[in-house]
């Protein structure tokens, strides 16, 4: 009896990009995920192994694809804000901001100073929250359980702030074209201030736990190295790029929403390994706290929204007394507004890297095309490059270090 070796490469295997050489006995294929705690969602990685050394790592995604970009084409500009939260679901404010800035570029408007400062405050608090999720889960993957509890304790306070502001903890949709849905409620700034004052001591706590920990260092130093040139070609951005020593941050390079009014610096790494990414994100949390502190101190008075009720719905109490407000209210929630024909892309620095919405307007109240530039999606392309020649256990550390969110990758 003869064995037909060509049968090994079934259509299904080939479709997944895995080519098995029947005469090569040295390589082994190991499937990791999609249900694996360290893949931070539903990511599947097919690892080609030589012994325990990784030859190739092929990510497979799409398990939580929900067609958000398609859905966006069927929503009016103002109503599509709510679906942008669902992409990168741990930094919703920043998604909202990226979408809103693109719409505002199409319209050619800018909110007043208080609106911009409030947006920046929300985004920087959200960046801290996102980095805390990253820190907790990344440390948990590597085996340091305590950090998770500490990090999520502070994140809880940030989610409480979101809840106090908007009534929603994770999907606030608070930043909308023209400004924000509302101003901060009484007492909110005081709670923010309390958090901002306390936070540096909390970062010290996390660092005490793992910074000098020999196991942590052993697991992260010299692992998953990328060079800056590789990052450019692969489109890798954010803390992963900055860990290679490039101080590139869109908050400095292409300032948006008054961020250039604040005083902060861009932390960078040196070697571009997992440990450097960890150091960069820890330093970034401190910088975000600095920005939030300055925003709280200098918060200007005045309106938060543009003075145009064709873009921003009139306040609820005006509907009882003003016929014009009723007309605007009706028009904006039925017909929406019509930006001019054109295309807009405004890049924003998200906790993962460069995020931006590419909007194509044909002059109708619906975006003709709404496309997200997902930083996690682009950063994931570097996975195979980082894993080559490393061990399986390092894959877990590397995935954690690029901080992927599958909601954003699959959309």
């Amino acid at each position, binding site marked *: 009896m003869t064995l037909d070796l060509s049968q090994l490469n079934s259509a299904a295997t080939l479709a997944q990009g895995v080519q098995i050489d029947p005469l090569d006995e040295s390589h082994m294929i190991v499937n990791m995920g999609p249900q694996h705690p360290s893949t931070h969602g539903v990511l599947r990685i097919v690892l080609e192994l030589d012994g325990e050394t990784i030859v190739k790592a092929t990510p497979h995604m799409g398990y939580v694809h929900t067609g958000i970009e398609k859905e966006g084409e069927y929503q009016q500009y103002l109503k599509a804000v709510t679906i942008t939260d669902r992409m990168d679901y741990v930094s919703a404010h920043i998604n909202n901001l990226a979408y809103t800035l693109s719409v505002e570029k199409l319209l050619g408007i800018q909110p007043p100073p208080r609106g911009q400062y409030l947006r920046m405050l929300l985004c920087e608090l959200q960046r801290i929250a996102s980095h805390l999720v990253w820190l907790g889960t990344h440390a948990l993957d590597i085996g340091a359980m305590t950090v998770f509890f500490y990090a999520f304790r502070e994140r809880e306070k940030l989610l409480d702030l979101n809840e106090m502001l908007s009534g929603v903890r994770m999907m606030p949709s608070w930043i909308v074209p023209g400004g924000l849905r509302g101003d901060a409620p009484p007492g909110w700034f005081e709670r923010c201030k309390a958090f901002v004052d306390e936070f540096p001591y909390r970062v010290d706590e996390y660092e005490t736990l793992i910074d000098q920990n020999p196991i942590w260092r052993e697991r992260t130093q010299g692992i998953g190295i990328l060079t800056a*040139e590789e990052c450019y070609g692969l489109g890798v951005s954010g803390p992963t790029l900055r860990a290679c020593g490039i101080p590139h941050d869109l908050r400095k390079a292409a300032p948006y929403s008054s961020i250039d009014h604040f005083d902060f610096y861009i932390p960078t790494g040196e070697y571009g390994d997992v440990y450097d990414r960890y150091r960069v994100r820890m330093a970034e949390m401190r910088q975000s706290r600095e920005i939030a502190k300055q925003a709280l101190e200098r918060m200007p008075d005045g309106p938060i929204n543009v003075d145009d009720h064709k873009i921003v719905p009139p306040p609820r109490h005006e509907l009882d007394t003003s016929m014009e407000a009723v007309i605007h209210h009706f028009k904006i929630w039925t017909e929406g507004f019509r930006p001019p024909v054109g295309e807009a892309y405004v890049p924003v620095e998200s906790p993962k890297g460069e995020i931006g919405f590419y909007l194509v307007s*044909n002059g109708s109240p619906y975006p003709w095309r709404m496309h997200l530039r997902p930083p996690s999606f682009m950063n994931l392309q570097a996975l195979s490059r980082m894993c080559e020649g490393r061990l399986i256990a390092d894959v877990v550390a590397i995935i954690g270090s690029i901080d992927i969110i599958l909601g954003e990758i699959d959309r």
Partner: protein
Amino acid sequence: MAEPLTTTETAASGERLEAALLRERFPDAVEEVVEFRGDTRITVRRDRIQDILQFLRDAPELQYTFFSECLGVDYLDPNAEELILGKKHRFEVVYNLYSVPDTRTGRGTGRRIFIKVGVPEDDPVVPTATGVYPGASFPEREIFDMFGIRFEGHPDLRRILMSDDWVGHPQRKDYPLGGERVQFPGGKFGPSVGDGIVQHPGESFFGRTASELGDRD
């Protein structure tokens, strides 16, 4: 390598430097230059896209080393069955390039440019950019998945977000929103519950089981 026209952002002709340089270097390849709210979008010929991307990446005064992304756009109005905005081709692929200011080497300009190619419906093929920017790999797979545009020379052109056996390209405008079948038809395949009591997403929302409803396909 052509001599640089000028080192400032705007060329002598008043056009942005990138557009002027491309016109000089590829006189027959630049089709259209559009300015909108400070962004420049240059439409180029499809068969020259690889050369143009390489030029933008390597020209010392441009240095578009950072591949931000590429995306597809479908300009077919499915109701009127004609193209909107007077487009000549149904699809467009937009390359979003950025020049990272690199403080170590002092290179990079911090500018952003959008390069577009038109893609006709009857011949949806574009030369791949993966040879110039390895990062084009995933976005090109996504465009192939969503629009059915093939990238010639791409090392691994497979679907990326939809499942491997999916039929059609969902981001095309003539692909309707909603109405597609659930992934566990009638609870007969996949993680089936059969005629069990437990509700699951593949089943009716009215508390009836799959067999009571009959084959809905």
